């Protein structure tokens, strides 16, 4: 199916259902506006997010990936968020290897009630990706 392309850039946010996904909901509750180009994929824990998911996202043509999990020491599964952090680091270096700027992937942590933080992260990441896009050589 063809869906109309979202306002560029395309950003995928993998959101832990324990925290970040709820923070995204909270942003909606509070009617906080953030760029509509963010596509949320809900996961049970940040520890479910795989380096491969991030790489595949870039294969599909996304411009940026956010990995959003619980604050440190607040993971329902103890170290899921720490694992996610390490995997984001790994993904950054794998992407650098193929010439994609590692700053296109970032991990942030949030609490379920941090709607404003979610909106800020979404906006800042969008700005960051726009800036990186503008630095890309044309043609």
């Amino acid at each position, binding site marked *: *199916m*063809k869906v109309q392309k979202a306002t560029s850039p395309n950003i995928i946010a993998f959101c832990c259902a324990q925290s970040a996904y709820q923070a995204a909901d909270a942003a*909606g509750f509070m009617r906080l506006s953030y760029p509509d180009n963010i596509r949320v994929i809900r*996961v*049970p824990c940040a*520890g479910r997010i795989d380096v491969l998911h991030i790489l595949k996202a870039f294969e599909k043509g996304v411009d940026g990936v956010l990995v959003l999990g619980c604050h440190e020491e607040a993971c329902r*599964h103890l170290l899921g968020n720490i*694992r996610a952090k390490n995997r984001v680091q790994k993904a950054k270096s794998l992407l650098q290897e193929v010439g994609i700027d590692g700053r296109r992937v970032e991990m942030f942590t949030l609490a379920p009630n941090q709607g404003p933080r979610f909106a800020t992260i979404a906006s800042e990441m969008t700005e960051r990706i726009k800036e990186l896009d503008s630095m890309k050589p044309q043609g």
Partner: protein
Amino acid sequence: MDKDLKLGIFLCDCGGTLSKDIDFSLIKTKLDKLPDVTFVNIGHGLCLKAAREAMQKDIKDKGIDRVVIAACSPEFCENDFMNVIQAAGLNPYLLSIANIREQCFWAHPDKEKAAQKAIAQIGMAISKARFLEPVEQAEAPVTKEVLVIGGGITGIQTAIELSNLNLKTTLIEKEAALGGKLNRLASLYPIQAIPQELLATKLKQLAERQNIDALTSAELIDISGEVGNFTARIKRGKKELERNFGAIIFTTGYDTKFSNQAYGFELSDIIITPSQLEPMLMSTSEVKEIPGRVCFILDVGDEHSRVSTISALRNALGVRQKFGSEVSILCRNLKVDSATLESFYRDCRSQGVLFIKFDKPPKISNEDGRIRIEVEDILMAGQPISLPCDLLVVEETSVPPRDSDVLSSALNIGLGPQGFYQENNVHLYPTLSNREGIFFAGNCHADLDMMRALTEASNVALNAYQLLSQGKVTVEAERVAIDPGKCRFCLTCIRACPHHAIRDVRVNHEKMVAQIVDLACQGCGICTVVCPAKAIKFKDWSDDQILAELELVEG
């Protein structure tokens, strides 16, 4: 991915609030054209009873085999809709939800863009739906018996609470008598009772219960098995016994330790710890000479704990009442964290206990068999005070009981930075360990006063009750499952599972492979990711589903 699917899409405009600016029928028209979409319906409140019944009917009538719901956040509606489609005869996991309320219409004021995003999100949900798989429910039997480790007041109370809930309980205590610290304390806080009398009452209650087996001089050797079906080996004298339990509760409490390194001097006849003072207060006849002035000192090493604050206040009052001595408490800053403790502190003051607060640790010297304390009192603008005293009571720090580390590594349960047991998530699940079916109560994992410890005792008993009361629990069977053919038995998942829910088994008595224990699995998906052979499938968060969602991202 199944070839011929019958997708049913249910849109909800949330009582018309979402369709104010956007025509949902336009969205419906787009969705209608998609392959495999059998049915698209616009509802005005899918959370209403009538709408649900209609949905069930539609599912049945149209032969829908995958349900996509576009409504509010799955955080609110997922469980409900799972029940709805289950009632319609579908496996509840054949459901995919697009969040078009919180994460679309509520977040994006530009309704056109919000609608575009909604369509994209629905597209992602449809894409995911193609890869959904049923997850079956299964019943797992559980042993309706609980092991409580540690026979102090928390353990005793936990056993009594479990007994009240009709759960057979074995309470083990490594010492020869139950009661732990209650045997050795001179007073209690906040209960105004003689500790030994309170203990006697509790022991009497314990003895009356048919379903509590209290074993003293008993130590845990090891525990095998998983939640619902643990086997504990317990050593009692020369005998060793083996029993099965459905749940295990740690109430091992804490030990105390005086750190002479922090103080820079050793204990003596006139420098003692609270543990040495309490027996003197319990039988004053043993005290040869009544001390004229007694000083308590806190905060020389680390900041004092709740336990040591209470100890200092209780004993200061005890000394004041039993000996009539002059009593001072020297501390950096007394921390009272409840109205009850505040009033206890006021009591101490009104009964003549002096509080001296310092910034710089006091100088303590020995002078002709007496102690001289030199301190700058910050309440008196740092004025130096020279305080002679006959007895100095230093602070003891709480340390984990001696074999905590052995038990924790044997059972794969975590220890926190100070070596006490670490809760699964201290904020959300204060009495849960990282392993299903193993719980903590009392001071083995937190710095608690007695009332708080007793509250935890009843909480934790309810935790165990919830798990065991039916003699069986319903679990999702193989929700996360390891393909034995692909498993290389590299142990990566077994090492990585935060809940120790993966064990090794032999398939057909031949090949060793890892297998997930459904009852212990808490569904985080960490194993799925770490597996280097990609042998682990998380059925309702599979790679296929996640990648299918990505599929729709590009325009």
